[in-house]
């Protein structure tokens, strides 16, 4: 359980995770936001389907790869939360055909 130790009141925003709405502090990373909501699995590995979550929180372990706003393989610890953002766990090797082709 991660608890909030900020001295002061924090501005909260809403993100969607796996169909649920989560209220999280603005200005933090997606990984931190999910850990703060006790979400423990961020992805499953392509090889064995093992559950993984953030390990280093600084962009060098690539264990926090998630699908953010429809785009796969994003490091959740390097992306800041935004109001209305959708986040989904990345299961195995992500689908590439369903991604919207940018115009």
């Amino acid at each position, binding site marked *: *359980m*991660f*608890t*909030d*130790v*900020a*001295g*002061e009141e*924090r501005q909260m925003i809403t993100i969607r995770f796996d169909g649920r709405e989560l209220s999280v*502090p603005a*200005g*933090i*990373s997606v990984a*931190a*936001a999910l*850990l*703060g909501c*006790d979400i*423990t*699995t*961020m992805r499953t*590995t392509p*090889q*064995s389907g*093992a*559950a*993984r*979550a*953030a*390990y*280093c*929180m*600084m*962009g*060098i*372990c*690539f*264990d926090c*790869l998630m699908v953010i706003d429809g785009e796969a*393989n994003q490091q959740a610890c390097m992306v*800041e939360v935004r109001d209305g953002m959708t986040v989904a766990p990345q299961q195995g090797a992500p689908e590439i055909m369903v991604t919207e082709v*940018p115009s």
Partner: protein
Amino acid sequence: MKRRYDVVVIGAGPAGMAAATTLADAGADGLSVLVLDEQAMPGGQIYRSIERPGTGPDVLGDEYADGFDLVRALRAAAVDYVPGAAVWQLSGGNEDAHVPRCEVGVSVDGCAHLIGADAVIIATGAQERPFPIPGWTLPGVMTAGAAQIMLKSSCLAADGAIFAGTGPLLYLVVAQYVKAGVRVRALLDTTPRAQYRGAAWLLPQAWRAGDHLKRGLAYLKQIKAAGVQHVKNVTDLRIDATSDDMKTVTYRTTKTGGTMEAAQVFLHQGVAPNVNLSRAAGLEHAWDAWQHCWMVVTDAWGASSVDGIHVAGDGGRVAGAVAAIAKGRLAALDVLDRLDRIDHATHDRLAAAPQRDIKTELMVRPFLDILFAPPAAFRVPQDDDTVVCRCEEITAGQIRAAVADGCVGPNQLKAFCRAGMGPCQGRQCALTVTEIIATETDRDPHDVGDYRRRPPIKPLRLSELAELHAETGYSEDNH
């Protein structure tokens, strides 16, 4: 952001900020400096989120407060500071008069650029060493540095966590937790008793050098005063998942053993230079037998084996923040000298204080290196089932089998079992792989070598590279 600068500084931690401000302040007018920072705001890891602290220096400690001056100086300096910039390529030593000596490939806001420079200072800092024990890949197991990042950047702390390992950063984070009033389940300390004895003769000189040891002792006192269970001489560790989120940590010490439960486990056994960029740029490295990791070979000013590229701070060799600041200043002064943008008198005058600082810092480093050397059993996993390459899920046993099959080095190992081929590109497994192969073949790690690193050293979208094609216009027909 322009496409051409006199100097590019990569990294905005202590070394990068010191280098950039020295370049701007001491360099002749008109010197163009670009600072590329992967983070959203300056500070690197040690001063992370310092411009927006939710937890003040009273929790995070004086060292954190030291960063304020540097960040303010950077913001005031005549440099182009670009946050959110991921450097994916670096080359130097270009001799062709028509191209800049150095080229930096960087991605900002999803757009890739190639930037030319006469000089580049790599100040990308260190990363935590891998800590390959059974269960280290489980959700809920993170590094102590991650715990600190959560605290600094998100003001979140894990209640009832278990900390394990060795090294100053570990004690610092536990002390910060204690000061923030967060319950710590236990500190499982892998520092071997013999290393206290081994380091003792260096204690007098280390004690005289700055505040490190006094601060360190103060952390340990705070930890003790808070009643945190401090288990010493841990020789064996494993983590197993039990129920949904809980983990059981099983440990053995020289005298006893036991188990304990927690939702979060934080591991740490020292830091090592993050060599992916320096390797990809072709810089010469050497195996540091004191710190059991690779370091960049440089002269006293940070000049590397590649013309035009300097390295400053923990990205070259781990020596702490104060040394990093000093090395950043010296690298900047040397760059200015080579570019003929500073007079000798000023150069020598400004070099004096950083040179003194480095001397002082280096008086404490050997003590710390010996005392907190990560034990061999935790660098080279004995249990064959321990995952070594996290990305590709390759175990120690598979690596040893490859060596038995004739594999002689890390690059061959990739062909044998894909170790090192995942997205982290060896950051979490290279040191372990080199030492496993060294142990199995009875060779020195320096001879065994390291993974070859290649650009992009951070992943790059295909579209970004494709857009770059319009700029570079390369065609096989005109080459």
